[in-house]
C-alpha cells in the first residue's frame, strides 16, 4: 500500500512541518498498569534496500494479557516523504512484544540487518537480496536467555571487521507476580525498585553468521543494572570501542574496552556513574557525539523531572559534567525525557540536542524539546512541536535528502510522526562512512548504530557547515581535501 503522509500542522521554529505516519504504537496498557506498557517506542532509520533513501522500522507492542501482538512495521521511503508499508513483504511483523531495534550489517553482505529487542528475548532478521528479511535467530545462536531487552548496539568490539552485539536488558518481569502500585490512590506503573535488575549481554560475531555469548568472560555479565540504553564510542581514544549504559534509578555503567575481549566497568572513575550532585537519577535514553567540536565523544542522557538531563564533556581520561555550565540543568529541570539525540538541526556546525519528552510512571505528556547549541558551551531552548504526547523514541535523519536533519518520533498509543526540517540553515555534508567515524573540518561524528532510547540510526553521517563552501573529510585515517559542500560523500 502506498500512501501520502497527511500533513497535520505547522509547528513553531521556522515552520517545521509535522506529518503523521500510519503507525500506532500499541502498549496494551490496562487499568492494572503492567510495567512493559510504558516502555515501547524504538525506531530504526536505515536504508534497507540500498536506494539511497532512508527507510523506517518501528517495533511494536500489543496485548500483555494473552491477546494479539500489534505488528512491527517497515516503511519503505519512496522519496518526497512518501512511504510504503512493506512489512508483510519483508516478513518483519514479529511475534513478541517488542521495544527496541538496532540496524547493522552483521554479515558484511552490504545489506543492513535488524536486531529486534522484545519482552521475551531478541530476534535477528537477516536482510535478503529480494527485499525480505529472514528470521535467523536460531541459526545465529543469539540467545538472550528470555530476558527483557529494550535496546541494543552493533559495534565492532574486537576490530576484526564484523559487528558484535551489545544487548541492553532491563528488569525481570513476571505478570504472575506483578504487584499493584498506587499513586494518589490510583493504580500506576510500579517504581523500578520493585523489580530485579538484569545483566546486559554481549555477543561476539564469529564471522560465519553465528555469535558466541561472551557476557561472562568479557566482564559485562558481572554487572546487573536496569538497563535503558547504550551508547558506543571510543571514549578513551585507545582505538577500541567502549560502551556506556544508562540504568533506571541506579548508577550508569561505562564499560571500557581493554582489548582481548575484556571490559572494565569504570563509570565512577570517569565521573559518569551519577550526576555530581550525588542524587541518583532514572537514566533513560543516551546519545554520544562530540558536541563541543574538540574531537572527543561526549555524552548526554535523559532522566525524569527534577533530575535534569546530564551532559558530560569528555576530557580524554575522564568526563566533566557540564549540565549546569551548559544551562541544560535549568532548561531541563522540569522535564522528563526518553529518546535523545545530538543533531545539528540548523546546520550551523554545532550539534544541538533533541529530546522526546514525557513522564514515565505518571503518564505526564510533554512536547518535544530542541536545545540549540550556541557554540560557546551553552544551550538555549527552542520549540519544535508543542503538542504534548507520551513521547518515547526520536531519531534525527535526512529523510528527504535535502541536507537537513528531519526527526522521526514515537509516542505511546499514538501515531508516529515525522517533523520535516524547513532547511533554512547553512551548508552541509553527509558522509556514507559504512560504520566508520568521520571528521569533517573540526567536527567529528561517531558512527553508532544505537541512538537515544531503544532506537537506531544506520545512515550517512550528517555535518552542518554553516557558511563554509568546502571542507576536509577524514574517514578511517584517510583525508579528502577541499570537498565541496551540500553533497553526500561516498568513500
Amino acid at each position, binding site marked *: 500500500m502506498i500512501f501520502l503522509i497527511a500533513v497535520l500542522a505547522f509547528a513553531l521554529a521556522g515552520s517545521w512541518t509535522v506529518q503523521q505516519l500510519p503507525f500506532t504504537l500499541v502498549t496494551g496498557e490496562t487499568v492494572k498498569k503492567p510495567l512493559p506498557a510504558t516502555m515501547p517506542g524504538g525506531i530504526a532509520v536505515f536504508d534497507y534496500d540500498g536506494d539511497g533513501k532512508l527507510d523506517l522500522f518501528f517495533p511494536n507492542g500489543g496485548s500483555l494479557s494473552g491477546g494479539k501482538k500489534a505488528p512491527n512495521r517497515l516503511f519503505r521511503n519512496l522519496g518526497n516523504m512518501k512511504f510504503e508499508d512493506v512489512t508483510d513483504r519483508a516478513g518483519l511483523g514479529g511475534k513478541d512484544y517488542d521495544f527496541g531495534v538496532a540496524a547493522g550489517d552483521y554479515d558484511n553482505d552490504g545489506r543492513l540487518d535488524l536486531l529486534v529487542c522484545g519482552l521475551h528475548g531478541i530476534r535477528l532478521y537477516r536482510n535478503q537480496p529480494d527485499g525480505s528479511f529472514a528470521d535467523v535467530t536460531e541459526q545465529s545462536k543469539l540467545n538472550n536467555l528470555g530476558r527483557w531487552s529494550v535496546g541494543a548496539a552493533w559495534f565492532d568490539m574486537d576490530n576484526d571487521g564484523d559487528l558484535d552485539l551489545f544487548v541492553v536488558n532491563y528488569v525481570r518481569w513476571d505478570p504472575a507476580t506483578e504487584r499493584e502500585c498506587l499513586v494518589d490512590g490510583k493504580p500506576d506503573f510500579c517504581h523500578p525498585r520493585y523489580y530485579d535488575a538484569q545483566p546486559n549481554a554481549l555477543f561476539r560475531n564469529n564471522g560465519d553468521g553465528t555469535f558466541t555469548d561472551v557476557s561472562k568472560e568479557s566482564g559485562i555479565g558481572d554487572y546487573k543494572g536496569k538497563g535503558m540504553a547504550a551508547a558506543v564510542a571510543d571514549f578513551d581514544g585507545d582505538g577500541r570501542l567502549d560502551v556506556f549504559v544508562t540504568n533506571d534509578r541506579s*548508577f550508569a555503567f561505562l564499560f571500557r574496552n581493554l582489548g582481548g575481549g575484556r571490559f572494565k566497568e569504570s563509570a565512577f572513575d570517569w*565521573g559518569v556513574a*551519577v550526576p555530581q550532585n*550525588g542524587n*541518583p537519577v532514572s537514566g533513560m535514553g543516551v546519545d554520544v557525539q562530540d558536541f563541543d567540536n574538540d574531537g572527543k565523544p561526549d555524552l548526554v542522557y535523559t532522566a525524569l523531572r527534577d533530575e535534569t538531563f546530564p551532559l558530560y564533556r569528555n576530557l580524554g581520561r575522564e568526563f566533566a559534567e557540564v549540565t*549546569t555550565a551548559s544551562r541544560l540543568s*535549568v532548561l531541563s529541570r*522540569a522535564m522528563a525525557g526518553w529518546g535523545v539525540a545530538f543533531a545539528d538541526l540548523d546546520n550551523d556546525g554545532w550539534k544541538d540536542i533533541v529530546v522526546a519528552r514525557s513522564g514515565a510512571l505518571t503518564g505526564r505528556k510533554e512536547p518535544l524539546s530542541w536545545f540549540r547549541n550556541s557554540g560557546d558551551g551553552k544551550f538555549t531552548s527552542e520549540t519544535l512541536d508543542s503538542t504534548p504526547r507520551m513521547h518515547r523514541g526520536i531519531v534525527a535523519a535526512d529523510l528527504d535528502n535535502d541536507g537537513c536533519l528531519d526527526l522521526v518520533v514515537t509516542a505511546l498509543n499514538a501515531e508516529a510522526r515525522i517533523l520535516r526540517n524547513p532547511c533554512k540553515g547553512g551548508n552541509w555534508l553527509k558522509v556514507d562512512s559504512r560504520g566508520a567515524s568521520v571528521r569533517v573540518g573540526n567536527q567529528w561524528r561517531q558512527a553508532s548504530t544505537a541512538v537515544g532510547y531503544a532506537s537506531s540510526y544506520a545512515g550517512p553521517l550528517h555535518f552542518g557547515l554553516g557558511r563554509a563552501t568546502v571542507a576536509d573529510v577524514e574517514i578511517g585515517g584517510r583525508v579528502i581535501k577541499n570537498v565541496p559542500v551540500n553533497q553526500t560523500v561516498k568513500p
Partner: protein
Amino acid sequence: MLIALFLLAQDLSQQGAQAMREGRFAEAERIYRQKAAEAPSEPQWQMNLGLALHSAGKYAEALREFGRYLKAVPQAGPIHLLTGIDQLKLAAPCRAIGSLEIARRWQASKQVLTELADAYSGCNRYSEAAKVLEAAKEPRLAARAHWQAREYDSAKLLFDAVSAAYANDPAFQYEYGDTIYRVEGAEAALPHLQLAVSILSARGSLGRALLDLDRAAEAIPHLEAAVQADSALLLPLSRCYKATGRVEDAARVEAEYRKRLGALQ
C-alpha cells in the same frame, strides 16, 4: 469555632450546654451519652456527644459519634470539619482529606482551607496543598508547598512576592535559594543559601552550588557538615576533595557513597 458550632447545635440540653461552656467535658459527655441512649433516633445527641468527646481530646471516640450523626445528616459542614480535624489529630491526614473537602464546599473559610492544606501536606500531596494555601491567601506557606511539590516555577513566583518580609529568615532563604538554584542556577542562588547556613540541609545545597561554580574548596566545609543528614552529598564531597588535590579522601568518600547509595538501589 466551637462557639459557632454550639450555636448550630440548637438542641443541646441546658445541663449539657452549661457543662460544655464551663469546660466540664466529662460531665457533658455523660449527659449527652445518656440523651443519645434515650433518643437514638435524634441524631443531634450524637453530634453533641461528639462535640464533648472532641473537646475532651477523645478524637477516636468523637469520630465514631460524628460518623453516626453524618449518616443521618450528611451535609453538616461543621461536623465534616471536626471529623477532618479529628483525623488529623489521629495522624490520619489522608483520611481527613475527604471530610475537609466537604467542609470546604460548606464554607471555604481560612480555617477550613488551612486544615485541608495540612491534610494534603501530611499525605505528601504538596501540589494540592499549595493550591489550597493559595486560596487561603497564605503565599509563604503556599510557596513552601510548591517547593515541596518540586513545582519550582510556581514556588518562585510566590517566594519573590513575599521575599522582603523574610530577609532574615533562614528557613525562607533556604527554600527560596534552593528554588532559585533549580530555576536560575547556582550563581543566583548563592546569596540566599549563604543566609541559611544555620540549616543543615541548606549547607548541602550551598555546597552543591559552590561545586557547580568550581569553588570546591569553599564547598567542602558545608558538604562535610551536611553529609551526616544526606548520604548523596558524599559524591559532591568526593568531587571537591579530588578538585583540591585530596585524592585519598576523595577515594574514601566515594567508596562510602557507593556503599550507602548502592544499597538503596
